[in-house]
C-alpha cells in the first residue's frame, strides 16, 4: 500500500517549496512604497487602507494607479495607507484580509464602512469616502 504515501509526499513537497521560498524572501520584506504619506490627522477624516503584496500583479498594475489618481484629487487630510501583508501580517489578520488587493474604507472614527475585495476603481473609492464622511469639494 505504497500509494498511502502519496498525500504525505505531496504535502511534504509543497511544504518544502514554501519553506524554501520563505527563506529566500526573508531579506526582501520592505514596503513597496507608500502611495500617499500618512496624514497627521487621520482620526478626524475618513481613510483608506490598501492591502497589497509583492506577488499581487493586479495591485501593481491597476489598484495602485487607481489609488494614485484618487489621491491626486483628495484633500491632503485623507490618508491612503498602503499595507504590505508580508510586512504587516497582523494588520491583515486584524481586518481579515484573505485576498489581494483589498481596500478598506474607514470613517473618521476609524470604523470600517466599506470593504472591497479585488480591484476597486477610483470612482468607487471616492464614493465610499464620501459616504464615510469625506467633505465633498465645492
Amino acid at each position: 500500500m505504497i500509494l498511502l504515501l502519496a498525500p504525505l509526499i505531496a504535502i511534504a513537497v509543497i511544504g518544502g517549496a514554501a519553506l524554501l521560498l520563505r527563506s529566500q524572501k526573508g531579506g526582501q520584506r520592505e514596503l513597496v512604497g507608500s502611495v500617499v504619506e500618512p496624514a497627521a490627522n487621520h482620526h478626524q477624516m475618513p481613510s483608506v487602507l490598501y492591502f497589497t503584496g509583492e506577488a499581487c500583479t493586479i495591485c501593481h498594475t491597476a489598484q495602485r494607479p487607481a489609488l494614485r489618481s484618487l489621491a491626486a484629487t483628495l484633500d491632503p487630510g485623507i490618508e491612503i495607507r498602503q499595507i504590505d501583508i508580508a510586512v504587516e501580517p497582523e494588520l491583515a489578520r486584524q481586518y481579515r484580509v484573505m485576498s489581494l488587493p483589498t481596500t478598506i474604507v474607514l470613517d473618521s472614527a476609524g470604523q470600517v464602512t466599506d470593504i472591497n475585495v479585488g480591484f476597486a476603481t477610483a470612482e468607487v473609492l471616492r464614493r465610499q469616502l464620501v459616504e464615510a464622511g469625506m467633505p465633498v469639494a465645492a
Partner: protein
Amino acid sequence: MISDMAIVAFDRSVLKVNQAILMTVIVIGYVVGLAYHPIAWALPVLAVMMLAAVASPSLNVPRLLYLRWLKPAGIVKPRVVQEDPAPHRFAQLVGGVFLAAASVFVITGLLLVAWVLAWIVAALAFLNFAFNICVGCIMYAQLVRIGLLPLSRQPAR
C-alpha cells in the same frame, strides 16, 4: 488609465466550482484507487478538463456547469470582482500541466508519482478554495516580474 488593461468583471465562483471538482474527484479517486487502481484514469480526464478550460471558455466544463446549473439553481452564488483573469488562467494551466504529467505516469504505471502530482494539485486547489491563496497566480506574477511572461496589457503609468 484603467480601460486599457485587461480588467474585466470576473466571477470567482467559476474558479471555486473548478477547484471543488478537482478536490472532489482527486480525493475520491485516490481513496477508491487504493483498492481499484484503474480509477487513476480519472486523472487524464481531469487533465483534459483543465487544459480545455484554459484553451476556450466554451470548453470550460466547470464554467458551463456553473452557468447552466449551479448559478440558476442558486446553489452557488456569483462573486463578481473586477480583475485581470490572466493569472487565474495561468494557474489553471499549471494545474493542467501537473495533471497531464500525472497522466503520463498513469500510462507508464507509476501510480505513486501520479497520485503525488494529483495531490499537489488538490492541495493547491484547496488553498485557493478555502483561503484565496492562488499559488499559480503568484508564479504568474513572478514570471512577469522577471520577464519570462509578457503582460497581456499596457503597463501602468
